[in-house]
């Protein structure tokens, strides 16, 4: 990467957290509670950034008593996860969520239902993230807002020893943070769909992890889509539980509420515009919609649409790895990666082991973001304790990629548009075929060659574009390898599940993308971590 200007801001920390969404905020809290000096850097503003902030996450929430309830919940999830989930991991996050979420009561006013019971599991996004920011600050964590991390820094032994980034509201001033350990919690990516709150999530954490030598897992599972009124970002689904759909001629479509609804909607949208009416929403919910999800009715109101009377056009936005499940491969619930000193949490990590091959949206994802944040923060603090920071400032090596050839202007906007054009259309990413995936792979390969050869690497936009492109390439390559349909991954040319393929697929590589089956005896990074500390 470009050499640092002299006025670079330099900071030392025990633990550095990349990203201040749900996972990053919980990670910062737990690392600080474990005694670490913590710095959290977010691309935007910790409190409004990330996909939690504009939504309202319902956590996976099963009380420990009676124990049979948890056993049943886990058994259900293992079954619906189609062979990729692991019961032990599920028990761990159920337990951690149960213990940890209520501790936010100092900063978040949990709702009380009509029977007077406190409801912990369903929280409202803006208030939740505002509370998490307050909690993080109360633990003495330093927050750097509007400070996207651009690259990881490695020590001479290959372990991660810090990050470099830019202060975008401070004239683009460069900063470097040396840290004992780093937690990547930069979220997933929707490949720039208009999924609510996802615009700053460009997969930066995946790119940085890959540059450090970590693998991805489950990247084929990016074919999740969520309904929204056309031309809006409002991908919040509750009101649609009672929706009625029509085609352009006004004929009602047979789209019952249930697991296949998105697929049927997508097929209908391939035939033409689809309209929707919410008249079947029960009156006592209509009357309270603005106090349940205040941003949902706001869209209709501003357009002068009465959703209970009028028919409005709808669309589906891609969820990518957000309500999909791919991410950096983790060796344990602590978010240990294959790279010493590097941990991942939340959507930055693969959620296959807790969600299985189906979407973790609606419950598992936020339980994982919370729990993996708590675990990773604690584990990073432990590793950092054995590392002396402030000594290796001049020996840290930037891991961000360098242009392979002569630097020249690359049209990043065009590359972003091309990534969207490969990752969003239903016929390419939802109803997949071997032939279509091969064509996507070729298109993305050409873009990567252009970017990797000629793009100068020091700007936020260039890093984001590289991250989007790298993530799309892993996704397409992995989808092309899985010659079956399983959960979120649907192959038109292999419509059924192949019982022999109940394994996870790893992927990675930047100039050369690779895909490999996850072996039964995964090498764990823990030993290496100890060696590094």
């Amino acid at each position, binding site marked *: 990467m470009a050499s640092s200007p002299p006025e670079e801001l330099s900071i030392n920390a025990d633990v550095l957290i990349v990203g201040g969404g749900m996972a990053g905020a919980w990670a910062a809290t737990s690392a600080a509670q474990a005694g670490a000096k913590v710095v959290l850097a977010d691309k935007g503003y910790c409190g409004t950034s990330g996909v939690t902030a504009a939504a309202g996450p319902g956590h996976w929430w099963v009380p420990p008593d009676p124990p049979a309830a948890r056993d049943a919940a886990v058994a259900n999830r293992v079954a619906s996860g189609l062979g990729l989930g692991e019961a032990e991991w599920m028990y761990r996050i159920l337990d951690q969520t149960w213990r940890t979420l209520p501790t936010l009561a100092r900063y978040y006013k949990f709702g009380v239902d009509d029977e007077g019971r406190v409801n912990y*599991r369903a929280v409202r996004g803006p208030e939740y993230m505002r509370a998490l920011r307050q909690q993080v600050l109360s633990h003495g964590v330093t927050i750097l*807002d509007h400070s996207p991390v651009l690259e990881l820094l490695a020590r001479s032994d290959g372990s991660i020893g810090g990050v470099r980034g830019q202060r975008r509201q401070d004239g683009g001033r460069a900063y470097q943070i040396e840290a004992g350990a780093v937690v990547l919690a930069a979220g997933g990516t929707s490949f720039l769909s*208009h999924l609510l709150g996802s615009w700053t999530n460009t997969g930066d954490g995946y790119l940085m992890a890959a540059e450090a030598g970590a693998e991805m897992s489950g990247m084929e599972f990016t074919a999740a889509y969520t309904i929204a009124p056309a031309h809006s970002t409002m991908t919040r689904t509750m009101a649609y539980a009672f929706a009625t759909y029509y085609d352009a001629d006004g004929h009602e479509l047979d789209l019952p509420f249930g697991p296949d609804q998105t697929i049927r909607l997508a097929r209908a949208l391939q035939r033409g515009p689809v309209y929707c009416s919410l008249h079947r929403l029960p009156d006592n919910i209509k009357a309270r919609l603005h106090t349940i999800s205040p941003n949902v009715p706001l869209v209709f109101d501003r357009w002068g649409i009465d959703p209970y009377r009028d028919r409005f056009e709808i669309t589906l936005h891609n969820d990518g790895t957000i309500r999909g499940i791919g991410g950096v491969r983790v060796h344990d619930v602590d978010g240990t990666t294959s790279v010493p000193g590097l941990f991942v949490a939340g959507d930055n990590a693969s959620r296959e082991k807790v969600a299985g091959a189906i979407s973790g949206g609606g419950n598992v994802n936020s339980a994982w973001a919370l729990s993996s944040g708590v675990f990773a923060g604690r584990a990073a603090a432990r590793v950092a304790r054995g590392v002396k920071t402030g000594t290796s400032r001049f020996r840290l090596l930037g891991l961000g990629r360098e242009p392979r050839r002569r630097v020249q202007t690359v049209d990043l906007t065009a590359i972003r548009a091309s990534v969207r054009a490969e990752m969003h259309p239903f016929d390419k990413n939802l109803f997949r075929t071997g032939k279509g995936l091969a064509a996507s792979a070729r298109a993305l390969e050409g873009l990567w060659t252009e970017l990797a050869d000629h793009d100068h690497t020091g700007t936020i936009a260039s890093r984001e574009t590289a991250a989007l492109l790298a993530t799309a390439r892993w996704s397409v390559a992995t989808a092309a390898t899985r010659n079956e349909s399983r959960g979120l991954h649907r192959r038109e040319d292999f419509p059924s599940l192949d019982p022999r393929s109940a394994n996870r697929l790893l992927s990675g590589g930047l100039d050369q993308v690779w895909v490999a089956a996850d072996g039964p005896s995964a090498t764990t990074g823990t030993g290496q971590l100890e060696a590094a500390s």
Partner: protein
Amino acid sequence: MIELILADRCTDCGTCIEVCPANVIDPGQAGLPVLARVEDCQTCFLCELYCQADAIYVAPDCDRRVDVNVEEVVASGRLGQYRKHSGWDEWADRFPNEQWLMETVFRRAGEAAAQPKGAPLDVIERK
């Protein structure tokens, strides 16, 4: 996308500049914030929620710019509506956070889907 900051309401507190996750708003030369990068706006409405002066209007349109008439928006009562319905600041006692109802709605929708068409729907169990 964000379309308006009303100069006569804005107190120049700077909050929207700080909280906008997409870094859309810059401090202005003349004091008031300016919409510097509207094309980066992710239509999350969060700047509105944080603006205690109710000076911001975000149009729901995320993929196209729309003409917004200032007088109409002011007259519509929509400025500050999100903050109000969210029960923020001075609205805290008037608009409770009923997010907890979400799961009830989903559960009953599932049950309703399993019922024959036309059966009556009753979402919140009545006591």
